[in-house]
């Protein structure tokens, strides 16, 4: 095995172009498990730890440009107001030790349907900035997930950053698991209100081969909020509206039975999480008070 340790971004791209099979390693919280258990024997590791740009972010524009390797702990603490949904999702990842190392770039690289960043990125609206010596591609996050643990990166590409719309309204993330730490999601749901555009967006995790948006549910709710004059009045949502939103969100799932939960349970739970997170974001939108309960 070879251990490549580029000192800068250009050097990293050149190394990846020269050795397309080299496996990038950022926090190592996915890669090292695979190596320790002999599930993977890459011919080369490409260490990203020394590339400063990957550990910074820019918040000047309407988007946050988040360096691919910024650890979850920093997102939780330092990007809470810009990226509330992602910060909440980050807080549910593994444990403090895992959050001190693990990154959104790594979550995207692994592309597990259970990755906790994905629903939050889908709901917020995000683009993956993939780069190679050939140039930069901006991939809408919806198009990034191509299958179970597969993504749209070309062999010579690395993730430089994730561009995430800065929140203009409340966002929530909820995850079902057996305890509050160290849990791979049985299923997860993220919800974002976009009051400027008067739309809502969602993300579902662990309930289909890839992370998905519940588009029918989004369209339904966006139309109801508009036609019912909810944005102007800020009145409470009709229970029937929330129930239908939950039903449509459950309908967006295409889950499997596995050791963590049955398909039927996942579908049901996504419906519940959708209703619950909708209630939270709407309450925050209308009262200005954030909900800190966990789901």
């Amino acid at each position, binding site marked *: *095995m070879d251990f490549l*340790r580029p000192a800068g971004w250009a050097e990293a791209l050149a190394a990846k172009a020269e050795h397309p099979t080299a496996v990038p*390693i950022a926090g*190592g919280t996915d890669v090292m*498990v695979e190596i320790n*258990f002999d599930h993977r024997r890459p011919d080369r590791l490409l260490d990203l730890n020394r590339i400063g740009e990957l550990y910074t972010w820019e918040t000047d524009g309407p988007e946050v440009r988040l360096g691919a390797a910024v650890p979850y702990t920093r997102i939780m603490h330092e990007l809470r107001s810009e990226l509330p949904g992602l910060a909440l999702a980050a807080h549910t990842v593994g444990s*403090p030790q895992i959050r001190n190392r693990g990154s959104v770039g790594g979550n995207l690289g692994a592309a597990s349907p259970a990755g906790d960043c994905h629903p939050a990125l889908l709901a917020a609206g995000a683009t993956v900035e993939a780069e190679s010596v050939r140039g930069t591609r901006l991939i809408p996050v919806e198009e990034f997930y191509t299958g179970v643990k597969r993504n749209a990166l070309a062999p010579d590409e690395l993730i430089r950053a994730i561009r995430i719309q800065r929140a203009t309204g409340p966002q929530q993330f909820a995850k079902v698991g057996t305890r509050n730490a160290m849990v791979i999601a049985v299923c997860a749901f993220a919800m974002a209100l976009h009051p400027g555009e008067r739309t809502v967006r969602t993300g579902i995790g662990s309930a289909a081969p890839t992370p998905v948006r519940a588009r029918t549910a989004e369209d339904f709710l966006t139309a109801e909020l508009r036609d019912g004059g909810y944005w102007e009045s800020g009145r409470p949502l009709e229970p029937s509206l929330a129930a239908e939103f939950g039903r449509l969100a459950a309908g967006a799932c295409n889950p499997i039975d596995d050791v963590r939960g049955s398909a039927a349970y996942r579908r049901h739970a996504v419906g519940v999480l959708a209703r619950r997170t909708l209630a939270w974001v709407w309450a925050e939108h209308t009262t200005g008070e954030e909900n800190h309960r966990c789901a």
Partner: protein
Amino acid sequence: MRVNLTVNGRPQQADDVWEGESLLYVLRERLGLPGSKNACEQGECGSCTVRLDGVPVCACLVAAGQAEGREVVTVEGLGEGELSAVQRAFIDAGAVQCGFCTPGLLVAADELLEHNPQPSDADIREALSGNLCRCTGYEKILDAVRLAAARRGEAG
């Protein structure tokens, strides 16, 4: 490959390191520091917790080459010569049974108290949520951290 790093304040050099090896393996098998324990090698148990440039991490998930030039603190570095406050408190509170989880918990608890000298119970639970113990049921561990915090407060 060769890896140079600082461990517990001392420059160290490990030779013949396999590129896929973890920092935990280097510490235990190449540098003679078996304090950090190896129980799961998958980040689940926290018994390998060390500080990498000050930050608590699972040493089993850090590639050896990623530690090049960095500062590592292991449980061996907590009390030089005598027991540190957290170590003393773990003993006094009866928080050690088989002891396998103890080094990782000590490193995590020590870091917590450094940043948060008067943690709430929720803070303690959160800080130690990445460390599993199969013996104590955690109550004595919580007692130990509270005790260490109280003693620090008195001393301080």
